[in-house]
């Protein structure tokens, strides 16, 4: 079977400076794939390019066998890709409910939307309690839940998570990762970008380590974990 996402030798530049170079990797259906790397390794750039916010100067991106390299972001949302951006990207002045409904912006099935809304509220009871509150008043953890909930509202098949644990307390991070597992169990494929590696490696089926825009290491969590280099740099040992 063809993989859900195939990134084929993409190069993305900011001006003349390449942020990623001939980057190549695949994400299989139903997997959680972790993309690790230090600051400036090109992780966010990669996600933004997959989402269609940035355009590669070279290379191709295939989603479900279809070439989506030149498709604008809103159309990729329709195909089932959702990006939960770094820093969450919550609309602070809109209510929690409005934020969630915007996740389903492209959908027309009113009933399905309301069902999914209830589903998200079941997943995050805190959001239900704060339904009509302006999102800017939520705590960091709640905002991250809202961002993920909003992503789920689009009924994605592929979810891109950009540093979801950034700035969250350890306990909240654990909760978050339990949630990521649950989302995968519901059939959503996940591409996860993190700087803090241990949790991501723990949950992933496959791991890529980026360094200055190229894949440096690739392998299963077990393979990657045992590498001296990874231990030293990413696992703090």
């Amino acid at each position, binding site marked *: 079977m063809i993989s859900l996402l195939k990134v084929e030798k993409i190069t993305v530049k900011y001006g003349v400076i390449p942020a990623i170079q001939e980057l190549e990797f695949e994400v299989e259906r139903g997997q959680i794939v972790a993309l690790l790397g230090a600051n400036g390794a090109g992780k966010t750039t990669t996600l933004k390019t997959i*989402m269609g*916010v940035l355009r590669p100067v070279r290379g191709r991106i295939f989603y479900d066998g279809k070439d989506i390299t030149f498709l604008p*972001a*809103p159309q990729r*949302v*329709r195909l089932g890709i*959702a*990006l939960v*951006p770094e820093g969450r*990207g919550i*609309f*602070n*002045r*809109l209510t929690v409910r*409005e934020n969630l*409904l*915007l*996740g389903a*912006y*492209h959908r027309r099935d009113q009933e399905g939307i309301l069902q999914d809304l209830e589903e998200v509220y079941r997943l995050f009871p805190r959001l239900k309690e704060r339904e009509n509150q302006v999102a800017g008043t939520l705590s960091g953890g709640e905002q991250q839940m809202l961002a993920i909930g*909003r992503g789920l509202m*689009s009924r994605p098949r592929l979810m891109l998570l950009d540093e979801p644990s950034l700035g969250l307390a350890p306990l909240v991070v654990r909760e978050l990762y339990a949630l990521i597992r649950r989302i995968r169990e519901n059939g959503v494929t996940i591409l996860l970008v993190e700087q803090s590696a241990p949790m991501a490696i723990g949950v992933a089926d496959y791991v890529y380590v980026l360094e200055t825009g190229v894949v440096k290491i690739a392998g299963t969590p077990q393979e990657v974990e045992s590498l001296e280099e990874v231990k030293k740099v990413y696992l703090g040992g």
Partner: protein
Amino acid sequence: MFSLSYFLQQSMNGIILGCIYALLALGMTVVYGILRLINFAHGALITLGAFFMYFVFFRLGLPFVAALFLVLGFGGAMGLVLDLVAYRKLRGGPEVALLITSLGFYTFIENFTKLIVSPQPYAFKTPEFLATLYRTPYLTFRTVDVFIIFSSLLIMLAFHLFVKRTKLGIAMRATAENLEVANLMGIEVNRVISVAFVLGSAIAAFTGFLWGAKYGQISYDMGFLTGVKAFVAVVVGGVGSIPGAMLGGFVLGLAEILSIAFLPTRFAEYRDGIVFAILILVLLIRPSGIMGIREEVRV
């Protein structure tokens, strides 16, 4: 020296001018909220709307309601043209490029109007059914005054409901807050921006008619200072806040009329100056406007 009836009379005049500023400010604040563009060309829309109404209603003699809808449609179409021709190509460029372009388009439209109509002001008769005069002990008014207040409130209410309740309205607020993330949500940002231009411009063109019906005179350059003052209303009310823009419009209209009404007559010439003095005062006390959302400082 000043009677209660004089005060009420002038307050009504102030509210009516406030309606006009508020309606214009509505369109300006929405566009500013999304694009950070001070759309000077918005002022030109009231000139175009006023002259368009003059021709379809007085010259062609179309029924009033039909003429009104034509004006709204015409205004909306012009808004779309401005968005597509003037601004779309500049997205992502520096904000000052947008500003200069809007000034350029204002100047173009003003001079084009001058060329086609005349450098002389036109007399704009109040439609007959709006000209009936009512006298009460405290207030003398015409039907047109009531029409302006009610139609303005109706438009503001409708706009408020649109922005608060409809999917497109929510998308518009989302786009104003964070365009990039709105795009990630599958919102076609360019379409939302076009809708903002169309609605704002349709309202502005309608305002042109109100202006003519109330003040009895329209001219090719009526839109400039009015447009600038509408933007002052946006800033006074609080940039980015739609209720703020409306409130700012009323504050400005009332202050402008009441100050000429109650200051010695020799100050009457300074009415425009007074408007800007209010702007400076408000900015000194509340830099983000009366209802402004304070920009959070992020580290």
